[in-house]
């Protein structure tokens, strides 16, 4: 049996009186590539932000290797260092170069020395093909390049899980491919455990091992991609896929 890395139990989140997530339950195992799909406003991104503790949960638990990390008195920084996150809007540090973006977390959080951190940063920047750009600042490179650097920054922390919050939604169409290629390689060659919120149905169908369809703050249906895409049970899933795949 594979090991549960993340276990979400009865997670609910409300902004004021507006319930965004209602009683979410699911698990992420080692090596899983889980995609979360669904219409805008269905709570996908909020769920991902809750998992990285960027939002506080209203109720429920998040277990990381069996330990609750959403409760009081838990060191959330130490947890976040083990769970990487890639944002829709990249969020690269504007005051630092590409190389420094990938080194600062290693040096300050993991307390790795300069030379080792640089080596590791370059290793991952090579992976995403951005190593020649180490001296550039974030405002000097394109969106697709920024997102690849953001992936390298997250990888340089050598996290156990990598969360992707709509990583290609803010990109021009011709740049989507380069980011998806990198993600595909991570999934298939490096067996990275990934949790991806996306509108890229081809990625969900071809790369992921598990698909979660969310609607109105609940998990409407989940399962293997072949089952969800070729034979969905719920009428809402059918309706959503029909609409999005015909576009």
């Amino acid at each position, binding site marked *: 049996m594979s090991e549960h890395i993340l276990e979400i139990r009865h997670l609910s989140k409300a902004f004021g009186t507006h319930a965004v997530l209602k009683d979410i339950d699911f698990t992420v195992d080692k090596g899983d590539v889980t995609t979360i799909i669904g219409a805008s406003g269905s709570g996908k991104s909020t769920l991902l932000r809750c998992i990285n503790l960027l939002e506080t949960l209203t109720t429920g638990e998040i277990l990381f290797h069996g330990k609750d990390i959403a409760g009081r008195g838990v060191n959330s*920084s130490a947890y976040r260092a083990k769970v990487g996150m890639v944002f829709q809007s990249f969020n690269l540090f504007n005051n630092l170069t590409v190389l420094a973006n990938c080194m600062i*977390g290693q040096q300050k*959080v993991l307390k790795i020395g300069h030379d080792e951190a640089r080596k590791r940063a370059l290793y991952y920047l090579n992976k995403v*093909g951005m190593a*020649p750009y180490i001296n550039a600042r974030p405002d000097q490179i394109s969106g697709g390049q920024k997102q690849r650097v953001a992936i390298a920054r*997250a990888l340089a922390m050598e996290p156990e899980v990598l969360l992707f919050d709509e990583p290609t939604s803010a990109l021009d169409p011709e740049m989507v491919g380069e980011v998806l*290629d*990198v993600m595909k*390689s991570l999934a298939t060659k490096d067996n990275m455990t990934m949790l991806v919120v996306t509108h890229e149905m081809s990625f969900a169908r071809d790369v992921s091992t598990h698909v979660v369809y969310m609607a109105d703050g609940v998990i409407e249906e989940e399962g293997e991609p072949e089952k969800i895409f070729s034979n969905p049970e719920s009428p809402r899933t059918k309706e959503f896929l029909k609409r999005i795949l015909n576009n």
Partner: protein
Amino acid sequence: MFGKLLSDISGLWAKYGTTYLQGIGNTLILAVTATLIGCVIGFLCGILQTIPCGKNDSVIKRVFLRIIRIIIRAYVELFRGTPMILQAVFIFYGLPYFFNVNFSSIWTVSILVVSINTGAYMAESVRGGIMSIDPGQFEGAKAIGMNHWQTMLYIILPQTLRNIMPQIGNNYIINVKDTSVMFIIGFSDFFAAHKMVAGAVFKYFPSAFIEMGGYLCMTLLASFLLRKLEKKLAGKSNYELVTTDQLVMTAGTYNYPDHQDGSPFGEDKE
């Protein structure tokens, strides 16, 4: 008419030049020191005021943070809301009532007063500067496991500093001019030199002329240097692709999917 003015000015300068220069020196030292200390106070207030605190934090932490915020608020309102000339008098004559201190050095009090006054303004500037930073920068830092202190020190404050450089320049120039009120406690700045010289030889207008020129020179020089500094903080406008570093693989663009082995270095290849 102008000939008389010129000869008066050169006469004053020949006789009291060192007095004026000493005044300029004192003014600059006080303004620079107090602005720097004021910035430090402002940045500290900025960090303390923005410590996040949610319902998951302990009661002690929440109460503690609440008290800190109230103290900073009170400090800012008090020192922004009263004249600096009065603050100088208040502290210079007030402290000896409560503490067994003897301000043998007027310097100490002057720097103290101007610093905390500047700090009060800077606290608000820094707060505004921090608020203007994209929340994504905080989230990016949090997501790689940085705590509040690290996030502030390495990510947010460097960007804030760049954004509020014009504000710091403002404060510095205001300090160059407003340190003249420190004559009230006997500080011998540039304006005090005027009072002394003019009082001795009754040449008020020529002396004021020198003062005007002197202050303008100080502030223009400050503006010029601050512009330079701003440019420097903005960083290089160009970058070069790195092709010679041994750890950098190629000069091309992305190439990851073409590598069939797991590592771009090929060290795990059989």
